[in-house]
């Protein structure tokens, strides 16, 4: 039996970022990962660090997190491929362009730097785009990076400060004050943090987290150059299929000269196979924005499972019924971005400090009330 101040279960970007923050605060930490650091959903994500304004809580967490990433950027190894390329939200018609002004107000109120591009400015910035777009919103400080190495960097930094890194160690059970590994070993700790992404409910039944599958495609090097992460504003109203699946145009320039294309959303799908029909919809959509796309060389298509919650916000904080258990999971499609902010929020609560932003909107208590506990136990 080994004793730690804190055992973090799950070495994705969220668990690794938390290990980094806690170890920097002198907390003795064990980071316990079933497979390899960053090899879960983190390895499947796009790595877009993006301030999103669908609601105030999302904007608060994402914009703060993006700024935390920016502070970290200089200390990240080159291989993490941090690139502050900014985001262009593309408006396909006047209706979408009209939505831009509301977004500008949201972002500016949150201290996020934005610019509005008219059609001419847009094509000057991104000549590869299909004609007919009416303009774009540029979010200046958004960035991209390579998620698995970002996670590994956090984990190795924690290790260098004395944290124990345990990979290839699946956790079988969480108990008050201890976690049981699948090989029967027991780690004791004052605090246990569950950061197992989409697998979190298997260790803590009743958590409102379900998989939301996504597809990505990467091209060979030498793809036509785009300079920003490109996203369609129309994603909000984009067509949903009968199965609830949706696609949106999302293209990312990699520093390697490759183009990373997304994305799709399939609620409740926990399979790993490429869904050919959905991939087809995704590629068709992408080809509308990037003419000539069909001629690019694809290297690989893959899928990943976003850990989705009913309101799209993560679960960050104490489990209301299990005071010994902390949650850091349910980051849906924004966990690469919000790993930095999430790690701070959980660490601050754990250490009894106040945070830079209000932690309440992400409190697990919003779902895990007494009644839901009864359902879970039924």
């Amino acid at each position, binding site marked *: 039996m080994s004793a730690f101040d804190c055992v973090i279960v799950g070495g994705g970007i969220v668990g690794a970022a938390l290990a980094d923050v806690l170890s920097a605060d002198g907390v003795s930490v064990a980071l316990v990962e079933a497979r390899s650091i960053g090899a879960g959903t983190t390895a499947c994500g796009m790595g877009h660090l993006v301030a999103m304004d669908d609601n105030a809580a999302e904007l608060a967490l994402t914009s703060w997190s993006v700024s935390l990433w920016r502070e970290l950027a200089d200390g990240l190894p080159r291989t993490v491929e941090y690139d502050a390329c900014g985001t262009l939200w593309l408006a396909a018609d006047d209706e979408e362009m009209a939505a831009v002004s509301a977004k500008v107000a949201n972002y500016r109120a949150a201290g996020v730097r934005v610019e509005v591009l008219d059609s001419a400015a847009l094509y000057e910035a991104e000549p590869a785009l299909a004609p007919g777009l009416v303009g774009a919103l540029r979010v200046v400080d958004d960035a991209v990076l390579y998620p698995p190495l970002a996670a590994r960097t956090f984990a190795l930094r924690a290790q260098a400060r004395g944290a124990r890194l345990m990979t290839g160690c699946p956790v079988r059970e969480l108990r008050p004050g201890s976690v049981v590994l699948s090989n029967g070993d027991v780690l004791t700790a004052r605090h246990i943090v569950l950061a197992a992404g989409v697998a979190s409910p298997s260790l803590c039944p009743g958590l409102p987290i379900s998989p939301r599958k996504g597809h990505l495609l990467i091209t060979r090097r030498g793809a036509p150059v785009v300079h920003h992460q490109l996203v369609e504003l129309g994603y909000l109203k984009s067509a949903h299929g009968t199965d609830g699946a949706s696609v949106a145009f999302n293209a990312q320039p990699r520093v390697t000269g490759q183009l990373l294309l997304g994305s799709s959303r399939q609620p409740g799908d926990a399979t790993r196979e490429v869904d*050919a029909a959905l991939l087809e919809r995704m590629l068709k959509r992408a080809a509308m924005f990037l003419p000539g796309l069909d001629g690019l060389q694809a290297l690989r*298509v893959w899928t990943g499972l976003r850990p989705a919650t009913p309101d799209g916000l993560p679960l960050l904080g104490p489990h209301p019924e299990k005071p010994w258990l902390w949650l850091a999971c349910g980051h849906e499609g924004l966990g690469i971005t919000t790993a930095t902010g999430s790690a701070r929020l959980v660490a601050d609560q754990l250490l009894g400090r106040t945070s830079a932003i209000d932690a309440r909107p992400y409190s697990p208590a919003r779902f895990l009330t007494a009644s839901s506990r009864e359902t879970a136990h039924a």
Partner: protein
Amino acid sequence: MREACDLVVVGAGPGGLAAACRAAEAGLDVLVLDAQPEPGGQVWRGEARKGTNRLARRWLSRFSASGARFRPGARVVAAPEPGVLLVEEGSSSFAVRYGRAVLATGARERFLPFPGWTLPGVLGVSGLQVLVKDGLPMRGKRVVLAGTGPLLLAAAATIHAHGGEVLYIAEQASAASHWSFALQLWRHPAKLLQGALMSATLISVPTSTDAWVIAAEGEDRVESVRLSVRGREEQLQCDYLGAAYGLVPNLEVARLLGCETSAGAVVVNERLETRVPKVHAVGELLGIGGVDQALVTGELAGLVAAEQPIPIEMERTWHRVRAFAARLALHDAPRAELRRLATPDTLLCRCEDVPMSALEGCQNLREARLYARLGMGACQGRTCGTAAQTLFGWSGEDVRPPCLPARIGSLRLPSEVSSTHTRES
């Protein structure tokens, strides 16, 4: 575009050709796809034009007469749903809907890294042979070959016949293993004959067992190689080095379709059916066994696909060639010393320029991929993944579509995949 057929055969080497002939002769509508411009696969490359090899001539003309349709330059890139393949053909693509499939995608060479292995002029053993057959000038060129098994001699014979000077053949297997393997060859008359013919023409080439390349050296291209020969070091000046350690099956299409693999080969039952119903595997996919295995397993699978009876003699032949394949695998297994040749700055993955040192701390292939970009490039780990498997015992990663780099357009689904037959002949 859409195509439909009773049986699709992927690969037009001896395995695929034999399967296609048997099935088409029994009346099935057979479609054969191969990435190469001509049928023949690796061993009968160019024979469709030259017609110098009797066995090849016989099978190729039988194939033309069989009624099977052949699509050259057709690369299978994805398997979007059971019974459908996506195929890239030049700058266009099409989908094939099939009732059954025979996978006959053959093998590639196993490269193991040593200092200098990425220098120009350093190639595979059979890779160099293929280039020579395709016209690489050999007259006056000095060549060193290093590797294992019968393909070393086949390559040497070709280079010799094209006017090249083979300075040395380094066989990695131990003397004991090599000679016991050679002595087993009497059970396989065709091979014994081939071997004897080759040795006769090569009588003047110094050959050694327990020998391998330590390093290739040169400024802009290979100028010399250092060999370990029975514990001594030797240096030879040369223009080309062919160095590769046997073959490994091309499992990508099979794994894309979900076929189970074990010990580097596709798992099949006695009807050569994989764990995926109605999908068969033949030839090198069953474990490296050469032309004889490819032909007999191809014939068997073609007959099974067409629901024809299997002649007992054919089954016996198959069991015999399987025994040969098992011995070949023992003989060709890379010796331990070959795993220790690379230095920290030797590249393991040449697509992504990943040196050995970048793998520090990686525990498995997935970590090497995620943290060091091993196998993330154009070849998707075909070369370095196999090497890493041999060097570190790491097992393979999942295959994701496309199984070969392909235009995005080739991954697009045709609006509807027809299921009606469109037999041409």
